[in-house]
């Protein structure tokens, strides 16, 4: 009896063992097979990169040539998306109206914020510098050798403009300051500045009225100094015309500009709409978004408008722009468009540019709008 039992147990354990090996075998087979498949399919995946091609617009502003490529370049990608786009006027203005941009940032914000500025609008400046308290060779960022903090902003601004003046004065006509949460539309800034002389002492931005008789420019919305204005500003600290110490950067700069007889310019478009904006589009476009008790309504130099009249079609800047919104604005301004749409606002080409372009296209049938409606 016991023998049968033992035999039975033997057989049971044997079939149990068989089952176990079968199971292990199937797992092993599955594993081997899935590895083979992933290698096989992986190769296919590589030949279809999801990255297609470099943004052609960003590269046209790269003066140093088209030699270096960033990211993957797929030569089979269909570039026809932008073949009906004529950027001659934009390119012409790039050569005629040279703008150096410097972006106020800090060591903690290089990866969080400044990176997205670099990936979007900064490429369109003739020259761009990222100003931080500490140098960062990789980003790259200039080290101003200051501390960080809101109370350091004016000191950083002074040192930044000094640095720009000492190293790049002859490389640009206009000098733009922006924050790492400001989005700037360089093409529209060039259109605005093309009507003005960089040898004149003048600066532009979103004009505020309190405290300074001729008004001063909002720091966050960004402001741009003419070459002459920059010279006077840097000189002011050597000759003690302006004070170094202040915790309110934009107001202090505005006061200094007034002392130096640098004019606070009118940056509105030809229909009177503002171009520099201290907030994102939503805050300006939606009626009632900013409560009537908000400081903004009392600060604006020109009558403030909410709703569609708030903002020019050729807006120059927006502020408090988070990283997602940076890319959204980039998409809405430089990519998405209503095909064939005849925009209501047809701004004039700057006179000298218009002449050059029309001479070049004398024999071609181009739809370049030259006049105001």
């Amino acid at each position: 009896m016991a023998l049968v039992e033992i035999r039975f147990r033997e057989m049971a354990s044997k079939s149990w063992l068989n089952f176990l090996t079968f199971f292990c075998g199937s797992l092993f087979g599955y594993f081997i097979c899935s590895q083979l498949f992933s290698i096989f399919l992986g190769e296919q995946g590589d030949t279809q990169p999801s990255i297609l091609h470099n943004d052609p617009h960003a590269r046209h502003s790269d003066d140093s040539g088209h030699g270096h490529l960033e990211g993957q370049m797929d030569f089979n990608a269909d570039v026809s998306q932008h073949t009906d786009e004529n950027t001659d006027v934009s390119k012409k203005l790039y050569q005629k109206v040279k703008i150096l941009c410097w972006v106020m940032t800090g060591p903690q914000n290089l990866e969080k914020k400044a990176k997205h500025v670099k990936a979007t609008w900064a490429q369109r400046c003739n020259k761009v510098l990222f100003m931080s308290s500490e140098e960062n060779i990789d980003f790259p960022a200039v080290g101003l050798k200051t501390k960080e903090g809101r109370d350091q902003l004016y000191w950083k601004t002074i040192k930044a403009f000094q640095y720009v003046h000492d190293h790049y004065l002859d490389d640009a006509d206009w000098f733009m300051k922006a924050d790492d949460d400001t989005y700037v539309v360089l093409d529209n800034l060039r259109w605005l500045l093309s009507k003005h002389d960089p040898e004149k002492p003048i600066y532009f931005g979103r004009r505020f009225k309190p405290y300074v008789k001729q008004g001063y420019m909002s720091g966050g919305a960004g402001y741009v100094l003419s070459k002459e204005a920059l010279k006077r500003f840097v000189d002011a600290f050597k000759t003690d015309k302006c004070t170094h110490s202040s915790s309110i950067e934009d107001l202090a700069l505005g006061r200094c500009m007034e002392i130096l007889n640098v004019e606070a310019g009118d940056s509105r478009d030809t229909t009177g709409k503002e171009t520099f904006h201290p907030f994102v589009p939503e805050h300006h476009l939606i009626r009632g978004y900013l409560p009537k008790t908000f400081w903004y309504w009392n600060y604006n130099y020109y009558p403030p408008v909410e709703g569609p009249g708030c903002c020019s079609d050729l807006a120059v800047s927006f502020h408090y722009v988070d990283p997602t919104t940076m890319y959204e604005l980039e998409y809405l301004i430089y990519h998405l468009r209503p095909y064939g749409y005849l925009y209501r606002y047809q701004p004039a080409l700057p006179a000298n540019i218009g002449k050059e372009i029309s001479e070049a296209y004398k024999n071609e049938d181009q739809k370049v709008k030259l006049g105001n409606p």
Partner: protein
Amino acid sequence: MFSESSSFLKGMMLGSIFCALITMLGHIRIGHGNRMHHHEHHHLQPINKEDILKISKDERMELSKSFRVYCIILVKPKDVSLWAAVKETWTKHCDKAEFFSSENVKVFESINMETDDMWMMMRKAYEYAFDKYKEQYNWFFLARPTTFAIIENLKYFLFKKDQSRPFYLGHTIKSGDLEYVSMEGGIVLSIESMKRLNSLLSVPEKCPEQGGMIWKISEDKQLAVCLKYAGVFAENAEDSEGKYVFNTKSVGLYIKEAMNNQPQQVVEGCCSDMAVTFNGLTPNQMHVMMYGVYRLRAFGHIFNDALVFLPPNGSNND
């Protein structure tokens, strides 16, 4: 020992076969993460750029006017703030836009469908639109008020497409055997599709009013089933790069996804330059899109377009 190794081998064989099966099945579904991968359904693309240049100036004007798009927006009283936004924004660019509501709402004019059921609303709206407007419009666009549409890009997409053919397009989704156009991205029907649909709507076996037996089938699926009987099949609309032109999410959401998946090429990985729809917008975002699409732009970038669309009368936000 021998029996063990043989059972191991048998196991291996079974395992590999099983794995192969799974991979094959999965491979059909692969690529939904990569938005530009080609699925096995039909794709439609816009007209070739080279063909555009062959068209004369006069022909272009004629062609621009030849697209007559009628917009159907299905609303319910709870949608009232989106309804307001949609009314003040993109629907002004339809050749005609009408709101079909589940019930009458005091604040806004609408056509009362007298039903709460989305599928019933859709059927009645299509019947109404075809009945009244079959002579006047050749393309019919249906959307919910969560959608923002750029009608000019829709017309560009439809350029040179023959409306006497049964077109049924948008953002397609495959559900088992059925390929249907998602309501969230907007549904486009040519006049021919409308004709065929309307002849079937009165046939309860083909187009039942109550779709699913156990659970409700969504109205966009019901539409697809109905249209299938009429020989009308869903087609996915893509641009020349394979990017979807009808989108079921907002720009912000696609940007966020691209920031995660391809941080070096965020904008390129986001969306088409000639996108027609985005979905899931708030009323405020509708107004921002209106400004961002129809007004905000970069000076000095000029386009030689084959079509010309004028801004609508009596509007100040475009």
